[in-house]
Structure formats: structure tokens, C-alpha cells
């Protein structure tokens, strides 16, 4: 289990990115993490990885996360954590050396699937290819919990759809994915659980099974949890209309 326990993070004193968030994610779950920009999704993931200082604790199977168990977490981020000056082949060597659990076959299969050039430096890739390399590395590390922060920014929809399918075929039952994304409609069948963040707190947490039982779409769930004002657009347009002849 990956547990966030009363995690509190503020930047520069005033801005509360996470306000006493507690969340529990178990093996095999595919969790979609949703929320507006600034809601705290990235902060939540970075705290788990120890990339940020925070109050509270994040534990993995009851243990705090240290260099001893950090290999069980992997990270794919739109900021790109790969080494731009290395080729994918060099990355493969690096990962083999540093991660005993490295899944070499999966790495090769994903490189093949994305048709990424093995011997070109990563900095020469297109944005889409960079995202693909980032995701490949996170999935091949051999981690139990794969944290992904907007990994598909800049990839076309066909790419993404194929990728979700591939993932569903590749993942072992005990591998867990936590995916932070804006692409609600796309991922709603792929995920098993949706967690919604709003201004640093959890505004909603539901399994897709429950949503299905209720006949509620993911978008409806998000809108109702965030008290989305659907009439805002019309109200604004009406306001503009009043001041004009035609």
C-alpha cells in the first residue's frame, strides 16, 4: 500500500498546495488523479517521491520512503526526468546498473512499439518521442507503483489510445499506476479509480465500478464534486449581449 498520511505542503508560507491530504492506494489499482491546474496533483506525487519537503508522512507498506525502497516507485513527468544527453541505449545500460528489477524485455518492447531510435540522444527527440521515452523508462524500471504526471502532453490521440491498450496488456496484476491527467474522457474506461483534487484537498474518490452502478460518467462526477457552474458561459454571454444592439 502506498499511503499519504496527513500530508501538508505549502509554498512560501501562503500557498497551500496540499492541505492535510490522506490517500491510500493499493496494488493493482489504476488510479486517475484529476483536478485543475494548481490543485495539488503534481505536488502529491512529488511528495511521495521525496522530491519536496512536506509535513506528514508517505509510507510504502508501512515504511517511510527512503533510498532502501525508493526503487519500488517510478516517475514519468511532463518535465522529463530522462538524461537528454544520453541515447535510449545508454539509458538501458544505466537502468540495468541501477535497478535490479529493470524489465529489459518490456523496455525493448516499448521502444519497438514507439519506434524510438535507440542510438540518438534524447535531446534530439520530438516532444512526443520524449514523452514516450519518459513513459517507457518509468514502466521498465520494475517499480510496483508507477506515478505519471501528465505524461502525454503533446502526443496525438491515436498514440495515446494505442498506448492505454498496450499498457493494459503489459501490466502485471500487482503493478499500480497513478496517472495525473486532464484527459478525463479518454482514461475513464482505463482506470479503476478516480481521485479528484481541488485546491489541495481530496474533493472526490470513487471507483469506476461505483460510477458504473450509478450510471454516472466520470465527467459528471468531476463536475458535481467541484460544483461546476455549467451556466457560467451563458451568463457571461448574456451579460455581453445586454450592452449591444445586435
Amino acid at each position, binding site marked *: 500500500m502506498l499511503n499519504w498520511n496527513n500530508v501538508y505542503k505549502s509554498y512560501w508560507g501562503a500557498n497551500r498546495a496540499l492541505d492535510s491530504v490522506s490517500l491510500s492506494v493499493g496494488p493493482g489499482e*489504476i488510479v486517475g488523479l484529476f483536478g485543475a491546474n494548481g490543485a495539488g496533483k503534481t505536488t502529491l506525487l512529488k511528495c511521495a517521491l521525496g522530491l519536496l519537503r512536506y509535513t506528514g508522512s508517505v509510507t510504502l507498506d508501512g515504511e517511510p520512503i527512503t533510498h532502501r525502497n525508493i526503487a519500488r516507485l517510478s516517475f514519468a513527468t511532463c518535465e522529463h526526468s530522462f538524461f537528454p544527453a544520453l541515447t535510449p541505449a545508454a539509458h538501458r545500460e544505466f537502468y540495468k546498473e541501477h535497478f535490479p528489477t529493470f524489465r529489459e524485455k518490456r523496455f525493448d518492447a516499448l521502444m519497438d512499439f514507439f519506434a524510438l531510435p535507440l542510438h540518438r540522444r534524447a535531446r534530439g527527440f520530438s516532444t512526443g518521442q520524449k514523452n514516450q521515452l519518459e513513459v517507457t523508462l518509468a514502466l521498465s524500471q520494475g517499480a510496483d507503483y508507477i506515478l505519471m504526471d501528465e505524461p502525454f502532453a503533446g502526443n496525438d490521440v491515436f498514440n495515446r489510445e494505442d498506448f492505454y*491498450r498496450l499498457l*493494459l496488456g503489459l501490466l502485471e*496484476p500487482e503493478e499500480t499506476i497513478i496517472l495525473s491527467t486532464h484527459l478525463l474522457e479518454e482514461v475513464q*474506461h482505463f482506470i*479503476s479509480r478516480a481521485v479528484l483534487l481541488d485546491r489541495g484537498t481530496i474533493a472526490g474518490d470513487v471507483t*469506476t*465500478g461505483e460510477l*458504473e452502478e450509478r450510471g454516472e460518467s466520470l465527467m459528471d462526477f468531476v463536475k458535481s464534486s467541484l460544483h461546476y457552474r455549467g451556466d457560467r458561459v451563458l451568463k457571461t454571454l448574456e451579460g455581453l449581449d445586454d450592452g449591444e444592439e445586435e
Partner: protein
Amino acid sequence: MVVVQFGKGVVTLVTFEGLRLEEGMPIYLQIIRYLERGIAAGTVRDGDELPSRRVLSARLGVNPNTIQKAFRALEEAGVITSRAGAKSEVSLTPERAAAIRRRLLEEEAAALVGALRQMGLDREQAAALVLQLWDKQEESP
């Protein structure tokens, strides 16, 4: 459908290739309905194999839990049998297949009847419309 030859006889794999997911209906129900329609049409027969949960999950782009839900419902209804480590199989007697076929036909027809009634047709008008469209489709399928 892929035809695989085993020791005795020919076994067909139900690939779910023709299943297009729609909005509005739970996916697990769509999977069940797809299989039942195949049974009603006679294209899915007793002994046919289903793909593994993981493969079907990847084909449809749908979480494995959903596939599991569909398979479990089908098992409970006795339509398929599952063994550990092997693919699930369709398990039909002619009576059960006929019952499923009857039920699906009734559901489709009931939906049509409901729609026609809602639009204000009476019994004779509905029958006449159905017969007219039937003849039309016979001429140009």
C-alpha cells in the same frame, strides 16, 4: 473469428472484434450483451473459447476489473465456465441458447413497441409499418 484446431473438433475463439463500446451503458453489460447476441445469432456456440481477461482488456482498452465483472456475471448465469490457468469457455445447451435468443428478441421487440407507442401509433398501424419495412429490406438488403 479465429478458428483453432485441437485434438478433436474445431474450436472457435470469440474475439470480440465487432464490439464497439458506446456511452451510456455500463461496459460490462455491453460485453455480456455482445456475447448473448452472438449466441442468439448462432455465431457463438457451445465450447467456443473466450480470450483471456488481459487480452480482452487490452483489445477494448478497458480496465481488467470491468472484464472480470462481465465474466463473473456470465459465470453466475451459467453461460460460460472458467478454469484456473485456462481460457473461459462458452457453456450452452440448446435449451439455454434458445432461451437467450428468445429473451434478446423480446427485449429488442419490446423496445421497438415502446417507441412506436410513444409516437402514438396504434396496434394496426405498428404492424403495418413493420411489415412494410420488412418487405422493403427483403427487396434491397
